[in-house]
């Protein structure tokens, strides 16, 4: 095995080795840059009492429970949309908001915030805030 590898190495020219080295260099530099170049996916960030609790991909169906000061708020992710389905708050305004595809759903009494974010795709015009 060792002699085989030696044989291969002996049969290569300096130019071959140079090419191999450049290829290795390019591949390893890719590791550094690929993270910056590729667009990140959309995520659902769920916070309770100003602390991040979950960071979930929007393309995976999931139902999670988040504990707030008044009890548990249930958040559902389905078909690239998010909604609050159960909440201990008195007015249930967060549930009435229904499904959202962008922006945020907030339950003020139970201090739960659900934000859809991280749309870093270069060709999409991102709105930084809404008034």
């Amino acid at each position, binding site marked *: 095995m060792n002699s085989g590898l030696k044989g291969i190495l002996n049969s290569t020219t*300096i130019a071959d*080795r*140079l090419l191999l*080295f450049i290829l290795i*260099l390019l591949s390893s*530099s890719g590791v*550094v840059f690929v993270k*910056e170049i590729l667009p990140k996916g959309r995520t659902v960030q769920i*916070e309770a009492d*100003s602390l991040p609790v979950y960071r979930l991909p929007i393309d995976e169906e999931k139902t999670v429970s988040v504990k707030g000061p008044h009890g548990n708020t249930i958040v559902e992710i389905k078909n690239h949309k998010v909604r609050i389905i159960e909440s201990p708050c008195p*007015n249930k*305004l967060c549930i009435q908001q229904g499904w*959202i*595809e*962008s*922006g*945020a759903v*907030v339950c*003020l009494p139970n*201090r739960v*915030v659900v*934000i859809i*974010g991280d749309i870093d795709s270069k060709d999409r*015009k*991102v*709105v*930084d*805030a*809404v*008034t």
Partner: protein
Amino acid sequence: MINKFKVKSLKLKVFLLFTFYFSLFTFLCACTPQKEKVYRKTKILMDTLVTISVVSNSKGDAEKAIDAAFSEIEKLEKLLNFFSPDSEVSLINKNAGISEVKVSPDTLNILDKALSVSEKTDGAFDVTIGPVITLYDFHKKIRPEENAIKKNLPLVNYKELIITRNKSTAFLKKRGMLIDLGGISKGYAADRAVEILKKRGINSGLVSIAGDIKAFGLKPDGKSWNIGIRNPRAKGQEDDIMATIELKDMAISTSGDYERSFIIGEERYHHLLNPKTGYPAKGFRSVSIITKEGTFTDAFSTGIFVLGPEKGTKVLEAMGFDGIIVDSNGKIYTTPGIKGKVALK
């Protein structure tokens, strides 16, 4: 022998060349300054969602600056909260018609600015609206009886809120008067938060307190901050935003009849009350005001909404502010100053 020596020398040269390029590559990777990024944090404060974004090349510095700005907003919330019994606003309200109350520089400052907006809008913006607005319950869809409005309306008059600068005091002349700073405090808090961020060395960022937004500097890509303006009659997610505007070193606030509102029959009851009648103002669906100070965008958006198309646009022009206005028929007007910065959808 000579040949062998030449080959060895060539190998050595190639090796040295490789080592040089590899070292250069790793050196450049290490020395390239960390790229500037937008760091964002969200918190529930002032009974709403507050989001602060800052541009920084250090996550630690960004988070420290954001936390300091949140603390400032929290401090203001404690002073200005209408519902908190310990706030300075509550103290002024409790002592209405009794005695003047010593207040902090922030409370004095915001009251002073509120009174100046009241003067400029002929009382259309009035922080003494408390006795009338508390008669409405926008969550439970409760509108007050006419008699109740008539009874409380004499208690609404900004001219009877007396502030004495040299003594740092505020006084409501009549018993039962109530000040509610809900129409100005978020804009003021956005201004203060930006000041804190700048003091912490942040050169670019965005403070968003519900619909009161203040932008400064540029994003890492060199572009202005892109702000969406809500469609006052949105039917679904797609038409939720009717326009976008690019902002740099400016604040924007929107007052709309779709926020804190309910409909009974054909009538829409919303929180933008006319202090002279006690009923929701008519004429506009939404008014977005753009100028440097968040305190003014917040208060003037309410005042101009209440004044209506004729008087409201005159005040807008006189103040030299920019604005995007949707009238009661859904027609959108923009001021000439923001030409080229607004994209209607």
